[in-house]
């Protein structure tokens, strides 16, 4: 990226002064280390095999290095601080009533902004997980979204109806009450509140993949205007949506609430951070 030197210098100065101005640092959120390893994962997105929708294939996914995942979902009070400092947008219909409630009405864009803000506050880089990372960390809390319907080429409604019934069952028993952090307990990795009533934004885009009769990938189209929210099941939500309520002709179970849980990146050296920042600025 070519930029006039004085411009870069200005940005650097701005960066440094911004860092010092934000002396009121956040305490470092608790994380859990997810050890390197591999697992069988049902791919996200839609799959068409020889023209017809099928369940996504299982894939072996390996993580070569460990990563750190937030032990709890981001709290409303921490998000509020980001709003107060004008980095994050206002959440929808959520008031500052409790010290210990997760943030529950934020968009993908809000989540990204929060990650940036938290990175500045803590001098560590935070980012949204991918769907693969989320599924690996969620372990037994990850819900397989296979429909298990026979692909009946004569009756496309069959898969549709099976899916409707599956999601109708999922929807039953969804609780609208926002519960204090920790209420849903932890999984085998010590991560709390996975697959409660607050879904978590991931960085993964909505994809549609075409397969041949052998299941070999022919092509894929991505739509990054729609991201995956992980939780009781995968939900595909437009990036600006804060409240994913469904109805009308959208048949399926929408997330009850949309929240945030972030991955903590290994500490980068100063040069990397500056380059990273310049790069981000350049993209604006």
């Amino acid at each position, binding site marked *: 990226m070519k930029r006039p030197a004085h411009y870069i210098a200005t940005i650097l100065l701005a960066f440094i002064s911004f860092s010092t101005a934000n002396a009121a640092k956040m305490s470092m959120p608790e994380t859990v280390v997810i050890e390197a390893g591999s697992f069988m994962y049902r791919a996200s997105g839609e799959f068409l095999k020889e023209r017809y929708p099928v369940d996504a294939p299982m894939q072996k996914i390996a993580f070569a290095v460990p990563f750190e995942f937030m032990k709890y979902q981001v709290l409303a009070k921490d998000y509020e601080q980001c709003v107060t400092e004008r980095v994050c947008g206002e959440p929808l219909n959520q008031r500052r009533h409790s010290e210990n409630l997760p943030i529950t009405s934020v968009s993908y864009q809000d989540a990204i902004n929060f990650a940036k803000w938290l990175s500045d506050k803590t001098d560590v880089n935070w980012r949204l997980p991918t769907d693969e990372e989320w599924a690996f960390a969620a372990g037994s809390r990850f819900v397989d979204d296979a429909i298990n319907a026979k692909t009946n080429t004569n*009756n496309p409604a069959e898969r549709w109806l099976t899916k409707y019934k599956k999601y109708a069952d999922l929807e039953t028993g969804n609780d609208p009450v926002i519960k204090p952090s920790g209420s849903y307990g932890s999984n085998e990795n010590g991560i709390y509140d996975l697959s409660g009533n607050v879904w978590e934004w991931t960085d993964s885009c909505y994809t549609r993949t075409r397969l041949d009769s052998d299941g070999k990938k022919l092509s894929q189209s991505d739509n990054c205007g729609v991201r995956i929210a992980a939780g009781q099941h995968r939900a595909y939500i437009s990036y600006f949506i804060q409240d994913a309520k469904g109805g009308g002709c959208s048949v399926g179970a929408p997330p009850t609430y949309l929240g945030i849980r972030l991955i903590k990146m290994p500490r980068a050296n100063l040069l990397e951070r500056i380059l990273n920042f310049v790069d981000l600025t350049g993209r604006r």
Partner: protein
Amino acid sequence: MITRRNALKSAVFASMAAPALIQKAAASEEAMKPDGAPVDLSKLERRNVELVAPPFVHEHEQVATLEPAIIEFEMTIIEKELEIDDEGTMLQAMTFDGSVPGPLMVVHEGDFVELTLINPESNSMPHNIDFHAATGGLGGGSLTLVNPGEMTVLRFKATRPGTFVYHCAPGGPMIPWHVVSGMSGAIMILPRDGLKDHENKPIKYDTVYYIGENDFYIPKDADGNYMRFEDPGSSYADTLEVMNGLIPTHVVFNGRAGALTGDNALKSTVGKTVLFVHSQANRDTRPHLIGGHGDLVWETGKFNNPPERDLETWFIRGGSAGAALYTFLQPGVYAYVNHNLIEAVNLGATAHVVVDGEWDNELMAQVTEPTALADAYKSKKALP
């Protein structure tokens, strides 16, 4: 901690005016004494019908095989708190027979409807019933005002075939409030020889689904949370303010957003014929079956008028009930909506019909599944 569910604003029971209004309403409505000449109905048979909660309808004949009779119904008015969405929003509801809407009653033209209306002691307010199908006496309203701990019996002759709204109308500002608190339902008066199509040929349905649509007006507190009240009286003043703004917070079928979706979705099968009876006691609406049609529609609900054919959307005037007949031709999930889509999707007025059966490729097929744009299209912009 105040969640939306627990936003009990007991401190805001500002208005003691509400009970006063109720008392006034009770006092001002002196029960009318019908003094007409006696009618001898002693030769008529009496049949008792047990009502069923919507969207279902009690068993009935489509073509009457018996002579006109006195059809006895009983409804108990129940004031109770109901959850009206999946976010825990609560309404101090007033109901005919415990459901919102009240049950659909079905009789034949020429029958006599004899309703026993019970207002239990546990209720806090006087109620009555106004049948749009009935003639005189404010539709029965002036003969049926009962205080808690009272009951009454009303009889009226079903003279006009069609679907008609009934609702509570206890006088003055109590009327709209009781209606938007859930007190409405419908009656269907079938021609004795059943329904006829546009060519006057007899037709039959396999199922009736009764969709009662309600507009609710739930006040919000200073924090923007829906308020919850201890009893109907304490909800009156704040609710009235929202009502008078004419913008409902909820527009729902069967008393609750999502009441007729998911596990509670309506069911049918390809080849089966469904009669959808749709009532709205207060506000205009426009039912539409996404993916289907109205084969025969009595938009105004009155069976002496020939039905309209092949409708996409039909208009139900506030204060009326209409009927639409449809034979399902294709399997899948259909959304039955109020086609003001803001009301359907955001405010709750959506039901689903899950239809089994074989797919008809002639009616519809996916010629090309979603594929990447061909090169020839790639350079094309939305504007030249």
